[in-house]
């Protein structure tokens, strides 16, 4: 059984870093890099929200509510892979049943199909209890690069294989 880095144990979800077949955890490496560089530049640190804190808080909020910290903080990519988005930084995630299974959760288009119709985030369905943080990248173009979508899917495949 692979040991994953735990990010948060929330009321709705437990969130861990996905682990590739070689044992690396790209989402965890990304968070470490943000943590190590958080005060490399910039004045008035007491007035800033650093990127590391932003991502951890966004993940914690999702873990406790199953919803984004605010609308634009989360975006659905494709085939059940979603992303936390902050500035030009993206961190993908997906859910799993913990036994290597994943039923892709898609954005709900019609309010009549909403699972949480009273929520202002009714387009977001219920996710399984376990969330894994996958691939991180910088988005510099309008569309998400195909290479990053493929990398996010690969991380998920390799991570879920550990649980089968």
């Amino acid at each position, binding site marked *: 059984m692979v040991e994953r880095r735990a990010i948060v144990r929330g009321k709705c979800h437990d969130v861990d870093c996905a682990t590739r077949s070689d044992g690396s955890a790209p989402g965890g490496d990304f968070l470490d890099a943000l943590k190590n560089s958080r005060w490399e530049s910039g004045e008035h640190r007491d*007035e*800033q*929200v650093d990127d590391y804190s*932003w991502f951890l*808080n966004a993940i914690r909020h999702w873990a406790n509510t199953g919803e984004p910290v605010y*609308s634009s903080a989360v975006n659905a990519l494709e085939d059940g892979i979603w992303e936390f988005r902050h500035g030009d930084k993206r961190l993908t995630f997906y859910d799993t049943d913990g036994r290597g299974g994943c039923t892709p959760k898609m954005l709900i288009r019609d309010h009549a199909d909403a699972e949480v119709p009273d929520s202002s985030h009714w387009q977001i369905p219920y996710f399984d209890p376990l969330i894994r943080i996958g691939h991180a990248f910088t988005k510099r173009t309008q569309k998400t690069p195909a290479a990053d979508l493929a990398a996010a899917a690969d991380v998920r495949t390799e991570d879920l294989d550990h649980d089968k």
Partner: protein
Amino acid sequence: MTNEPERPTLIEQEEATDAGAQGLAAADLAGQVVRLLEQALDASGMDQKALADKLDVTQGRISQVLNGDGNMRVAAVARYLRALGYQTHISAVPVEPGRPELPREVNRRRRPAAKREVSETRYVARLPKRSREKTTG
């Protein structure tokens, strides 16, 4: 088989340091600001153009704020929410032992009316009444 204690989560590690706990608190409050603005805009029934007109700013500025991270100046938060029909209040919940919830509310009643009796500490000169001189004309 030994039951090893679970390693602390990244959130627990952050909450255990001053810098980490403060960083998370800053991100959390900023997130609350955007969430509140989104909900107020939704509840008001206004669109971004109407809000821009009311605040006398560009629609681009409104979009920037609503798509930002919420780390706005306090005055801007109050202005935006007021323009959407809300007064903003701020309060603080203790997360460390021994701290009271803030702000402390003091229930002062209306100031009682001043007593009319003469007290020992209050000297009122009593001069003999002068009789009015009657004028004749």
